[in-house]
């Protein structure tokens, strides 16, 4: 009996040890290590005040923190605004014109200097001083426009108190998207003495869990842990601390080479979307283990110039919407396109699925017959990047089938938007466009693409030149209101109302992919719909 008891005790102890070992090791993943990643091109900027593209945002999401940020979560959860350097979300008063925040206490930059409330003010002024593309998001701050024009003095609409950490921002008018705009990388807080110049080659000190430790412009850059994160900044619970100790990113121009490196374990992650040529091969082989499809917030569409014949006729625009076959475009995008026939895509607050124009070529032809447009010469614009140019060629074919004399015009991708956004460019009839969200707020799409006041002689974003007073009024009203369930429902209605006017023919959202080496735990990798892959989420198995 005594012997049996001893045996049982040993067995229980052994089982306990086994459980303990598995809890410490296997399923929790490994802490530490060096993550190697690849990009197809060096980001235009590694300076948060200047970076306007996803490549740069992904690179700096975990390095430079604004007062607010987007939750480090997948999918719709990743669209929520959460506090970062600020203690909490802003207190909005004065009819939506005053935003009050408090800086957390004891924060430090990666060089050890304390983060001050006045650093936020100087960071926003730096955005204007640099002439950054991001300055348009902060023009509603009192005094900002004058500062942008003169570059003299300061922005009186931002008041700070370094002792208490209080930050008060005064707007000229209520702005429902301002909370999102405070979460953009442009609003990242940098030391007041950060030079007013592009700091890509020598990035400023960081506030996030990682700092950029070395840059070889055009070739590579590296991250190390921010030495002041653990002790001082990790109080920011909404931003994870990261698992790996170092991250090394190299520029590898050929995406096939990047795929090959991941397959061989020479790289752990590629930021570049996999080309259409290899997409399905990689997906079939690695989906679920090393490959995952992600859905950033974007919309791909064809715009139609509503001021010019034949697209000044609603029936013609509706016919085009009916004529587009999502099955064809699915093939053109090699399976990476998720078909969508509305403006707000999945993942955007306010998205409520509907389809006013299911594919029906017979109906499309009937509408054209009823409209009988006299002007049938159409120029179809697209950029020269595959598969967008193929989408344009498909669209040209569809228009020909509808009885138009359509001619495709391909423009170099670097010049495409300046050219189609310039009203002096002749024959701006119809063309391709992709639009990625600056932040997860419906107004980002509606204001730029459909508000009458967005029509501009150059850099025009309202390419369909729609100027409907009812739509304009609704956009303007909703812009002033903070986003809540009621506003989301109204944005869903607005989506439908605009599609009833059919100034554009949306055809889908393009997906991207997360592809990692076998050493990385794919399930742990977080893809934020705005910022891309979250570097703090990468963990070795």
């Amino acid at each position, binding site marked *: 009996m005594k012997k049996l008891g001893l045996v049982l005790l040993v067995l229980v102890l052994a089982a306990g040890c086994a459980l303990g070992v598995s809890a410490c090791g296997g399923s929790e993943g490994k802490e530490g290590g060096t993550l190697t990643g690849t990009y197809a091109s060096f980001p235009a900027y590694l300076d948060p005040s200047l970076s306007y593209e996803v490549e740069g945002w992904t690179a700096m999401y975990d390095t430079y923190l604004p007062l607010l940020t987007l939750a480090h979560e997948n999918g719709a959860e990743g669209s929520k605004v959460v506090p970062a350097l600020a203690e909490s979300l802003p207190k909005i008063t004065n009819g939506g014109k005053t935003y009050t925040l408090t800086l957390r206490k004891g924060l430090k930059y990666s060089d050890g200097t304390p983060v001050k409330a006045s650093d936020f003010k100087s960071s926003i002024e730096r955005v204007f001083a640099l002439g950054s593309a991001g300055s348009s998001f902060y023009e509603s701050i009192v005094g900002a426009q004058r500062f942008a024009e003169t570059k003299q003095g300061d922005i009186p609409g931002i008041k700070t108190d370094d002792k208490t950490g209080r930050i008060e921002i005064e707007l000229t008018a209520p702005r429902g998207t301002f909370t999102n705009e405070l979460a953009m990388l442009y609003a990242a807080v940098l030391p007041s003495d950060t030079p007013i110049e592009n700091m890509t080659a020598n990035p400023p000190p960081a506030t996030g869990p990682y700092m950029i430790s070395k840059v070889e412009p055009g070739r590579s850059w590296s991250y190390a842990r921010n030495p002041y994160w653990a002790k001082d900044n990790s109080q920011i619970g909404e931003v994870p601390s990261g698992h790996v100790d170092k991250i090394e990113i190299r520029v590898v121009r050929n995406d*096939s080479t990047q795929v090959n490196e991941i397959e061989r374990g020479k790289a752990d992650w590629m930021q570049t979307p996999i*080309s*259409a*040529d*290899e*997409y*399905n*091969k990689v997906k079939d082989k690695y989906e679920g283990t090393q490959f995952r499809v992600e859905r950033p917030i974007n919309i791909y569409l064809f715009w139609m110039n509503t001021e010019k014949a034949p697209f000044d006729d609603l029936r013609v625009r509706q016919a085009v919407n009916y004529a587009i*076959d999502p*099955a*064809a475009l*699915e*093939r*053109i*995008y*090699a*399976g990476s396109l998720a078909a969508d026939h509305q403006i707000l895509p999945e993942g955007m607050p306010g998205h409520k699925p509907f389809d006013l124009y299911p594919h029906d070529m017979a109906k499309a032809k009937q509408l054209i017959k009823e409209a009988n447009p006299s002007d049938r010469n159409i120029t179809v614009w697209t950029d*020269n990047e*595959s*598969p967008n*140019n*193929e989408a344009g*060629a*498909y669209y*040209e*074919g569809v228009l020909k089938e509808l009885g138009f004399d359509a*001619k*495709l*015009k*391909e*423009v*170099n991708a670097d*010049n495409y938007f300046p*050219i189609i956004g310039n009203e002096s*460019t002749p024959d701006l009839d119809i063309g391709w466009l992709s639009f990625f969200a600056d932040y997860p707020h419906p107004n980002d799409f509606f204001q730029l693409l459909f508000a009458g006041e967005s029509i501009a002689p150059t850099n025009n974003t309202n390419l369909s030149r729609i100027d409907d007073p009812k739509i304009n009024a609704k956009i303007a009203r909703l812009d002033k209101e903070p986003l809540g369930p009621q506003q989301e429902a109204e944005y869903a209605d607005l989506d439908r109302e605009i599609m009833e006017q059919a100034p554009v023919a949306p055809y889908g959202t393009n997906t991207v992919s997360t592809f990692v080496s076998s050493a990385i735990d794919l399930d742990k990798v977080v893809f934020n719909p705005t910022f891309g892959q979250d570097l703090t989420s990468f963990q070795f198995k």
Partner: protein
Amino acid sequence: MALDPNAKAAASGPASGPWRVAWRRLRRNRVALGFLGLLVLIVAFCLAAPLWAAHVARTGPNETHTLEKIQAGGEEREVVNREGKPIGPQWLEAGGRFFLGADGRLGRDEMVRLMYGGRTSLLIGFAAAAITTLLGAILGLLAGYYGGWSDTLISRAMDVVWAFPVALLAIALGLALAVGGLNIGPLHLSSGSIWITILVIGVVYVPYMARPIRGEALALREKEFVEAAEAQGASSPRVMFGELLPNLASTIIVFFALSVANAMLLEALLSFLGVGVQPPNGSWGTMLNGGLDLLTSAPMLTYLPGAMILLTVLAVNVFADGLRDALDPKSKARIEAHSGFTAAEVTEGIAP
């Protein structure tokens, strides 16, 4: 073939003209003639495009078939599957349709595109070479004959153009004209016109023709027959085009042939980079560009237009080389080494 020992003695009658001599030389160069035959074959292949498109493929070069299914090999096949992979070569399984498969996610017939693309590439090659030859010959003649400030002006202008790498200059011009087209006086070309590509290529190669022509014209100007013509009161244009030009004809012909090859290569480069032939017009260069997206899954889409460019340029170059040997009197040493007859015997027509 054995030489008739009595043939030399039996030779009588007038000496053969230079063109006849050249033809004899060329006839003996079987390699050059072989590649001429290849070039003729390629041209015939491209010229047959409308026939193949209408009667065999039953589709045009720009018609898309993304969602179409065809009957081939007793089964129904998607021209482009859901993953965007185009159908491969069907050869004759679908009655000749999609003989070489589809060209990409738009599902256009690759064979039809190859044939029509060749027409565009050959047209651009020959037309651009003609422009280069015309402008180069005129400018070279003017510079070489007149000399003085005319020579200085023309030569310096050529130097400026020559200073730019040909490809970079062509790319820059192509980009500049890509959106707005060309509008100079009565000349209006829309931005998608292939004549823009032809003009750009034709112009950038002018110095490469003008300078050698100028050099030869400079040398010929000092010859007695030119002096004689001037002494007889012949006008300058009469001397240039009546006396000098015939003597430069062989040089010009050879340079023209070589220019065709250069022009085709440059067109392929410009179209590959997106600043040459504009869609929906296709050329072998645009097909190379399009094939790159599917290099892993459908490499033939790149290999086929690449092979056509290679074979055509090779054929033109080898034939041009043979033509130069035939037309160039200084090459007699080579003729004697290759044929076993003396150059004079070839000239006299004694050697077959």
